[in-house]
């Protein structure tokens, strides 16, 4: 047989065999894939297969430990409030305080507050929530434990005295104007003393026990926290059976999960997604103050923080009050708020819903619009010795994103506005943690830096007193200091507001903190199933959550 014919026959066989193996492999692959897909899809969800109402909130994370006394992170305390009761707490509408573990409370004298506990109230493990437990908790939180920093905020407490099983007195060092605010602040959460002492902090963080309306039934660290309504809660079982805090770091994934019906609420809805969410049936956008404000801190001294070592010969232009006044009038707050995307312009550092914020003056859109005055800014620059539009160089430091959203774009526009009146701006944008380490917490702010802060009035006067040792600035004006001290010990509300009015005049005049805007939280809620009115304090906690149509 000729060799060529044999070779041709072998080639035909080989091709047929190749086809066969191709078809077999493809079939096998398709079969395996199909079985795997069907198998996976056929297995139903692990959760939410019962009749319980379930609300899933997308938390951007990270979430901190369950020992509520061990950190100050607001967004973790949101969640902890489901689980822990405080003695009293801020009402959702910001108008006052509501009873929690305490049934009632009263001021006995200027330095003594008495709390009456609920009879028979217990923690989730059955331990009594009594006067002794309150004393143990406040004594714990007002002393340093490990690296716990909360004790500073509880320094106003002089002594906690157990009067009887259900009555406890809290004595303050001096009259304390913001006692109720401070006693319902971070660290107010009550934990069971006997259980904690038995298991220690580490185990408590794994298996916490509280006395709030929900019990924790599942904890996956910094990932998923499942709470279920507690039947024995003193004020009645919450309406929604199960509340889940699910950590979803990516905003786009949160939006997708909401559209897919896998979560019920998200906060900080990105601007490009708002229209799509608003147009989706059953989803409603809600807005409320995020309780966060953006400011620029101006360098007013050369001694605080790391400044003397880092910039030994540098004389910031902002030491001159006229330069600072030029800056505040050069900034168009309406424009900056618009650039941020979810903010309202402000001149003062307390949120507008607090009476101390004097919304009619410092949150009034017309007044703020008039405040932007480039000509006046140029006049102040001239007074500072910078005539003919030749202003000094300003070093402006900002993170890419601050608390409450975008900061980079705002800083870029602010820099342009400052340059319009004659400043030369050297803008440095850093990643948030680099900004914290290199500028903010080390006190390395050179001329201007972004500060994103809460906006409650209680602690604010403290920050500008002569004995306050902030690393980013050191403002000391003895007259202002006297007003601040008076505010803190004035119990009478009206008299205190008069003092606040004076306090703001110093704040505006000295221009160390240049307030830009109050951040608005844009939330998306599954209103097809749930009703929720956002709290004024910006806390995403869901004690007041209810089912739609109930």
């Amino acid at each position, binding site marked *: 047989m000729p060799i060529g014919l044999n070779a041709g026959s*072998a080639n035909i066989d*080989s091709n047929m*065999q*190749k086809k*066969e*193996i*191709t078809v*077999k*492999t*493809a079939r*096998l*692959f398709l079969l*395996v*894939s199909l079985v795997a*897909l069907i198998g*996976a*899809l056929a*297995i139903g*969800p692990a*959760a939410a297969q019962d009749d319980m109402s379930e609300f899933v909130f997308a938390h951007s994370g*990270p979430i*901190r*430990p369950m020992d509520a006394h*061990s*950190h100050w992170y607001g967004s973790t305390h949101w969640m902890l409030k489901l689980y822990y009761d405080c003695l009293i707490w801020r009402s959702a509408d910001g108008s006052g305080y509501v009873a929690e573990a305490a049934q009632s409370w009263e001021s006995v004298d200027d330095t003594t507050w008495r709390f009456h506990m609920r009879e028979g109230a217990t923690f989730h493990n059955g331990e009594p929530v009594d006067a002794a437990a309150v004393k143990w908790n406040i004594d714990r939180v007002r002393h*340093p434990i490990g*690296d716990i*920093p909360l004790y*500073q905020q509880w320094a106003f407490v002089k002594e906690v005295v157990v009067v009887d099983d259900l009555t406890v007195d809290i004595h303050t060092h001096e009259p304390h104007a913001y006692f109720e605010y401070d006693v319902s602040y971070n660290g107010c959460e009550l934990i069971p003393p006997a259980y904690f002492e038995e298991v220690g902090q*580490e185990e408590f*963080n794994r298996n916490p026990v509280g006395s709030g309306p929900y019990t924790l039934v599942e904890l996956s*660290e*910094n*990932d*998923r926290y499942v709470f279920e309504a507690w039947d024995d809660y003193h004020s009645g079982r919450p309406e929604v059976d199960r509340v889940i805090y*699910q*950590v*979803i*770091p*990516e905003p786009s*994934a949160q939006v*997708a*999960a909401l*559209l*897919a*019906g*896998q979560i019920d609420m998200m906060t900080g809805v990105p601007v490009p997604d708002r229209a799509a969410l608003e147009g989706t049936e059953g989803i409603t956008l809600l807005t409320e103050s995020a309780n966060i404000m953006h400011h620029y801190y101006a360098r007013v001294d050369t001694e605080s*923080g790391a400044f003397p070592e880092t910039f030994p010969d540098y004389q910031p232009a902002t030491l001159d009050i006229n330069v600072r006044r030029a800056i505040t009038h050069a900034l168009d707050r309406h424009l900056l708020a618009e650039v941020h995307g979810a903010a309202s312009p402000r001149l003062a550092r307390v949120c507008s819903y607090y009476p101390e914020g004097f919304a009619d003056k410092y949150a009034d859109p017309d007044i703020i619009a008039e405040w932007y005055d480039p000509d006046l800014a140029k006049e102040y620059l001239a007074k500072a010795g910078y005539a003919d539009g030749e202003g000094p160089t300003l070093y402006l430091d900002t993170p890419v994103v601050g608390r409450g959203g975008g900061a980079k774009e705002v800083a870029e526009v602010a820099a342009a506005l400052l340059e319009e009146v004659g400043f030369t701006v050297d803008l440095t944008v850093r990643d*948030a*943690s680099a900004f*914290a*380490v*290199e500028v903010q*917490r*080390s006190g390395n702010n050179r001329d201007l830096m972004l*500060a994103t802060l809460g906006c409650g009035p209680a*602690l604010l006067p403290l920050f500008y007193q002569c004995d306050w*040792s*902030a*690393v980013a600035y050191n403002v000391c004006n003895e007259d202002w200091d006297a007003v601040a001290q008076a505010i803190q010990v004035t119990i009478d509300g009206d008299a205190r507001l008069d003092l606040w009015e004076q306090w703001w005049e110093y704040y505006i005049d000295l221009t160390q903190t240049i307030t830009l805007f109050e951040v608005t939280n844009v939330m998306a809620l599954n209103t097809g199933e749930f009703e929720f009115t956002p709290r004024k304090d910006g806390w995403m906690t869901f004690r007041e959550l209810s089912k739609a149509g109930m």
Partner: protein
Amino acid sequence: MRAFIVSRLLQLVVTMLIVSVVVFFILRLSGDPILVVAPDFFSEEQIEQMRKFWGFDRPLGEQYITFLRKAVTGDFGTSYLAKRPAMELVFERLGYSWLLAAAAAAIGLTVAVPLGILSALKRNSFLDLLITMLSSLGTAMPSFWLGLMLIIIFSVHLRLLPVFGALEPKAIIMPSVTLGVGMAARLSRMTRSAMLEVLNQDYVRTAHSKGLMQNTVVLRHALRNALIPIVTVFGLQLGWLLGGSVVVESVFSWPGLGRLMIDSISVRDNTVVQAGLIWFALSFILINYAIDVIYILLDPRIRFQ
């Protein structure tokens, strides 16, 4: 074999020591973690107290010795933020990363090897062109983009799969497909080129001329000899996957090691970052050693060298 294993173990100890030095000092040089953890209103004195509490006030060398002494017993310290042992947090997440890595690897292998073989067998055909194009696409496609596209199609529009978490078995489909696509693309190209090389060898021609079935020639003779570069690439890919895929775990909120690392790095929780990186390095090295052992099993000549 015993000498090989002993020498590799010694290499492992030395490598881990070097890794521990690099990880420890780079993290310390990257900035003061206390400045991230401390609140805005803290004074210098309070910040110093925190440094003292966490031992950052001591000389770096002393800190390293303390770290190393504890690390050999498995104690990587307590997380600054979670207030729990760092290694415990790493181990909690490890299972999820392993599961995802295994699923992605299974997808990668199941898709890549048959396609690579087909591509080589059908060299220069339309099928070959198609597979080559798809593998180029798979290599070039960013995983976060693919992940988001899958979410939009299968979660938002079709409502078949969950967007986040690891709560139900089907939650693994999208993250593992996202990871597996990239892996399959790289592996299929490698399989194709390795197969093309061996298919032209004399012993393959001899096998054909002996009258062996095509699948016997391809699977027993050619593929086995082409496996070494495939296994090498697979091992490297698997090493990365076991360390946790940061991007995919973030997009799908998969509670794995990658997400833990990102969360910890963003808040400079150094104890957790150290524990995670050491584990990552260890798993990578162990996989490489496993690959070495597989080489020996695949090609006995390597043993004698």
